[in-house]
């Protein structure tokens, strides 16, 4: 009788049975087999990382781009920008010591937007209280695992230029 009922049950109900006696036990061998499948998934993930790391980067801008004039960005000010052909948001900072820095505006933890806290020399990620050093991009505290990716900044006359990330890595 119970078997007939089981046969009539849709698959999703069989996967999540309501009654205790309808629960199908997973044998240890099946569990071990599942661990092997997870292990294979880890290998696939590692292979994907290798492929992405060594595959030639395409689509990343490599040129030199003018962002703004020096007089357009006061000390402690910031300016968001994107490079042509890329959707990655960047942030240009005018630090209190007079230097300019450009970083990716995505936190290396969970890609939240980061903001420069003027006067502190720190970049803040408000999502999980992550902090970066505005001068170097290094992590000061919080959950971010890596420094903020930086762009090379060049000053020429009154103009500020950045060099695309592909020029640096390629």
């Amino acid at each position, binding site marked *: 009788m119970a078997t007939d009922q089981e046969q009539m049950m849709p698959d999703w109900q069989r996967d999540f049975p309501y009654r205790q006696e309808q629960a199908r036990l997973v044998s240890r061998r099946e569990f071990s087999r599942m*661990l*092997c499948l997870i*292990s294979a998934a*880890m*290998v696939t993930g*590692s292979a994907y*990382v290798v492929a992405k*790391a060594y595959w030639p980067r395409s689509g990343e801008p490599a040129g030199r781009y003018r962002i703004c004039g020096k007089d357009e960005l006061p000390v402690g000010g910031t300016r968001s920008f994107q490079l042509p052909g890329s959707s990655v948001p960047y942030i240009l900072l005018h630090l209190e010591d007079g230097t300019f820095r450009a970083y990716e505006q995505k936190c290396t933890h969970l890609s939240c937007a980061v903001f420069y806290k003027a006067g502190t020399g720190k970049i803040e990620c408000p999502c999980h209280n992550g902090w970066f050093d505005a001068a170097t991009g290094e992590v000061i505290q919080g959950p971010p695992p890596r*420094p903020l990716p930086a762009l090379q900044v060049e000053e020429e006359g009154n103009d500020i230029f950045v060099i695309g990330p592909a020029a640096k890595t390629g």
Partner: protein
Amino acid sequence: MSNFRNAQEQAHPNKNSTLTLAIIVVQLLLVTIQVWLLYSGLNNALEHKSAIAIPALVASIILFLVCCSLLYFLPGRRAGKKYSRR
């Protein structure tokens, strides 16, 4: 013929169960190491340090093979019955 194995089976009837459990614990450890390798490889690759990615992949493949061989040597359903049949 020696009846050592038969005597062992009778003296320790839960031996297969213990072995199975031990193998599963080892497999869990191997998968945990693989998760760590994937995490390290990915983190370093995102930091443009790709040198760690290939050794991590090779280690992960070796651990996967070990995991599969452990499954192969896992005591089967008929383990233990083989000797009591005599």
